[in-house]
């Protein structure tokens, strides 16, 4: 059964649609749909008063005990934490608030960790793919008997399932960082 005061937006991956998503959240807040929480798959919005809000997202890996300070710095600048999930923080503020990143260097740094991570995942999964394929050619899976026909494609599909998204993410983050570089401050 659908609750009428709750709606969801699919999470298509922040690497690809951060700006579009934030804009959509702002439009929806204007119609009274306010971001409530985030999960790996979707964003949950609840019905409330229409508000003119500005949303921002920050990637931040914090050491234990540092979160309070981090959130206080934001709150004092008028940015309230809306929700967060594993190093992804959503903030909202009044429309006249100062942008969360006012510095090109720190804005670029926001993406550098994820860019490195996704690039690494891409390289490792590609190597794994090659190694698996090589082993198959050398008949190294023969000991599995007939079940190798099942195991081998499964392993290959697994590495592909990591390779393709990590490759796309890595390119998306690299593109984002190039865009920031060319932005005039």
């Amino acid at each position: 059964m659908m609750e009428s005061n709750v709606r969801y937006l699919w999470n298509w991956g922040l690497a690809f649609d951060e700006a579009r998503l934030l804009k959509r959240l702002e439009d929806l807040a204007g119609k009274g749909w306010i971001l409530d929480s985030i999960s790996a798959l979707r964003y949950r919005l609840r019905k409330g008063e229409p508000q003119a809000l500005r949303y921002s997202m920050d990637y931040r890996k914090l050491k234990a005990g540092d979160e309070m300070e981090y959130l206080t710095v934001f709150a004092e600048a008028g940015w309230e934490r809306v929700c967060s999930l594993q190093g992804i923080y959503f903030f909202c503020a009044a429309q006249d608030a100062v942008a969360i990143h006012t510095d090109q260097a720190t804005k670029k740094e926001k993406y550098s960790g994820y860019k490195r991570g996704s690039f690494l995942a891409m390289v490792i999964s590609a190597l794994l793919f090659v190694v698996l394929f090589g082993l198959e050619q050398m008949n190294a899976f023969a000991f599995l008997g007939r079940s190798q026909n099942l195991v081998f494609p499964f392993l290959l599909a697994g590495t592909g399932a990591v390779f393709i998204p990590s490759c796309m993410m890595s390119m998306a983050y690299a593109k984002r960082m190039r865009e920031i570089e060319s932005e005039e401050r």
Partner: protein
Amino acid sequence: MPRGKALDDNRLTDSMYYILLSLMEPLHGYGIKQKISDLSNGEIEIGPASLYTILKKLSARELIALVEEDGERRKTYQISASGRDLLKRDINRRIRMAEMGKKVLLGLQGGNDDGK
């Protein structure tokens, strides 16, 4: 992870420069933002994500130090001795830059009768 290309060459980015200037006295996050706003007559604004990133980076380089902790919520920072040295060097670098520009500006104004 403190990875700042500018800092590696002992140069401060503009935001780092403003933050170090403000930390001649002990301040916490919001105080820094206010001080920079006051010093620049409201011209310079530092967003919270930039501020937090830079504070962590300057701390890691020991250019600023934590002076007191008001629980976990608020941390107060102040410039360190090595921070002062670097800041002095950077102020001088910026003065030289501005003086170079000034010479050219005077030339531009001299060549232009409508210049002030």
